C-alpha cells in the first residue's frame, strides 16, 4: 500500500510536536537558565540576569551540594554493587530451570511496582522501627542485642537504611534485564559444555558472563541513569534530612523551596536549580560514556 508523505506527516506530527515542546525546548532552556540568576520560577526572560558560570562556581563551593553529590556517588557505587549482585544471583537462578519460574520472576519484580511512598512507609515504620520492628525482633530472637539496639533511622544510620530499602525496590528490574539476556544465549552452548564435562560454575563464568557483556553494559548504564536521578526517596524516606540529600532533591529545594529549616537560607535561585539539572545530565552522559568505553568490544560476538 502506498502511504503518501502527507499521511506520514499527519501520523507523526502530534508525537513530534510534543517531543519538541516537552523535551527539546525545555532542555535547551534549562541549559540557558543555568547561566542566569532567576529570582522566581515564573520570572520572564527579561527579569533574568546573566552571570556566566557563577551558578556552577557557587555550587561547587556549596557544602550542601557537595554533600549531596557525595551521597549520590555512594548510592551509585554501594547501591550498584548490592543491586547488581542480587540481580545477577536471581537472574542466574531463574534461568537455571527452576520450577515455577514465572511466579518467582513476578515475585522478585513485585517491589518495583510499588510506589516509593508505600515502600518507605513499610520499611521506616516496620522493618527499621526500634521498638516493634522486624530487624529488632529478629536480632533479639537471635540474641544479638547489639544489633537489636541499633537505631536504624537515627542520623548516623539513616542513609544506610535508606539505601538497603531502595535496593530492595530496585533489584527486580535489573534482574529482569539480565534474565532476558541470559535466556537469549542458545542452549547448544551449554550442551556442548556439558559434553566437555563443565560444571555449573564453569558454565556460568565461561559462557554466561562473556556472552552477557552487552546486556551487562546496558544494565550498568540504566543503573547510572536511575542512581544519579535519585530523588523520591530523599523526600519519602529521608524527609528532606541532609543525610539523604541528593542533587536531584537539592535542585527541587532550590527551585520550589524547602519544608525543613536546614535548607531555607540557601533556597531560591531557579538558575542554580537548572544548573544542578545540567550537572546531573552531564554526569550521566560522562559516566555512561566511560562504561561504554570500558565494555567496548573489538569483535562483536554474534549468536
Amino acid at each position, binding site marked *: 500500500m502506498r502511504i503518501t508523505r502527507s499521511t506520514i506527516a499527519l501520523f507523526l506530527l502530534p508525537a513530534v510536536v510534543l517531543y519538541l515542546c516537552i523535551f527539546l525546548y525545555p532542555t535547551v532552556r534549562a541549559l540557558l537558565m543555568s547561566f542566569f540568576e532567576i529570582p522566581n520560577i515564573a520570572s520572564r526572560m527579561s527579569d533574568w540576569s546573566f552571570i556566566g558560570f557563577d551558578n556552577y562556581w557557587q555550587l561547587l563551593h556549596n557544602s550542601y551540594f557537595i554533600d549531596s553529590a557525595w551521597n549520590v556517588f555512594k548510592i551509585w557505587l554501594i547501591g550498584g554493587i548490592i543491586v547488581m549482585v542480587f540481580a545477577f544471583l536471581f537472574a542466574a537462578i531463574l534461568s537455571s530451570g527452576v520450577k515455577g519460574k514465572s511466579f518467582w520472576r513476578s515475585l522478585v519484580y513485585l517491589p518495583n511496582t510499588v510506589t516509593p511512598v508505600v515502600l518507605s512507609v513499610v520499611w521506616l*515504620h516496620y522493618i527499621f522501627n526500634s521498638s516493634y520492628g522486624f530487624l529488632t525482633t529478629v536480632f533479639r530472637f537471635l540474641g544479638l542485642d547489639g544489633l537489636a539496639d541499633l537505631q536504624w533511622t537515627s542520623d548516623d544510620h539513616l542513609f544506610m537504611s535508606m539505601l538497603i530499602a531502595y535496593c530492595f525496590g530496585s533489584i527486580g528490574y535489573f534482574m529482569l534485564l539480565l534474565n532476558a539476556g541470559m535466556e537469549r544465549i542458545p542452549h547448544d552452548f551449554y550442551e556442548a559444555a556439558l559434553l566437555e564435562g563443565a560444571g555449573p560454575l564453569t558454565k556460568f563464568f565461561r559462557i554466561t558472563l562473556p556472552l552477557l557483556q552487552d546486556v551487562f553494559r546496558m544494565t550498568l548504564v540504566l543503573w547510572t541513569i536511575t542512581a544519579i536521578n535519585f530523588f523520591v526517596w530523599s523526600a519519602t524516606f529521608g524527609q528532606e534530612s541532609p543525610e539523604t540529600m541528593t542533587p536531584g532533591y537539592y535542585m527541587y529545594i532550590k*527551585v520550589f523551596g524547602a519544608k525543613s529549616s536546614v535548607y531555607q537560607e540557601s533556597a531560591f535561585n531557579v538558575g542554580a536549580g537548572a544548573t544542578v539539572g545540567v550537572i546531573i545530565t552531564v554526569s550521566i552522559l560522562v559516566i555512561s560514556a566511560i562504561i561504554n568505553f570500558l565494555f567496548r568490544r573489538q569483535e562483536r560476538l554474534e549468536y
Partner: protein
Amino acid sequence: MANKIRYVPLYLWLMFTIVLFGFAILASFSTTRGIFTNELFESGLHVSNYLVLFKDMNMGRYFLNSVIYTVSACVGVLVVAAPAAYILGRVRFRGRRLVETMFLSALSIPALLITIPLFTMFVQLKLTGSLLTLVLIYICTNVPFSVFLLSGFFSSIPKELEESAAIDGCGPVKSFVKVMLPVAQPGLITVSIFNFIAIWNDYIFALIFANNPKTHTLALALQSIVQGFTNSGNYAGIFAASMVVFVPTFVLYIFISGKIVSGITVGAVKG
C-alpha cells in the same frame, strides 16, 4: 544438593515479602497500641482506620483523582503514540532515523532537568492548578517510551494485512484504525500497563505540578497523611493509608504480571 540450594534465595525473598506487606496489612486493622505491644488483634479488628481516611482525610477524592489521571493519560498516550509508532515501525521514509533517534534521546533526558522550564511554560500558559495539568504532563512524558515500545510491535505485523485492506478499498487512516489497531492490541495493552504503573506511582511530577490540594494524587496525599500521622503517633493509620495505595496495584499486578515481565524483556532485547 546444589539443586535445592538454588531455591533458598527465592524462598527467603518470598518470606521477606510476605512478612513486609503482611505485617502492614495486619497492622492496618489494628491499633497503634496493639502494634507497639505486639498484640495486633488484642482488641479485635479495627476497620475505623480506613473509615477515618475516607471520611476525614478525603482519601476517596485523591483515589478518584489518581484514577482520572491514570486512565485519561493512558488513553491520551495511545492516541498520540500509536500513529507515530505505526509509521516508524512499518514505513520507510526519508528522515526516519532522525525521528527514531529523537524519541530515543528523550529516554535519556532526566525528568528533573525538564521540570523547571516545563513548570514555567505551564504557568505562562495558565495551565496550572487543574486536573488537566497533570494529565497533559503524564501524556507528554510517556509518549517517547511508548512510541519506542509500540513501533516494535507494529513492525512485527505481517505486511499482507495492510495490502488486503488496501484491496478492500481502505485508505491509510481507515486501515490503521480498522485493521492495524485491533491486531496490535496486545502491544497497546502492554504499553498501557507500563504507563499505568508509572503514572499511578509517580511522585516527582505530582509534587511539582499538582500544587493545588484539590488536584493531589493518591501518592502525594499519602505522603502528607503519613507525615501528619507520624507527628500525631497514629501508626495504625499510617499502615492503613499505605494499604489504600498498595492494594489496588497489587491486585492488578497479580493479574497482569506475566505481561509486564514479557514487555520489559521485549524492551531490553531491543534496547
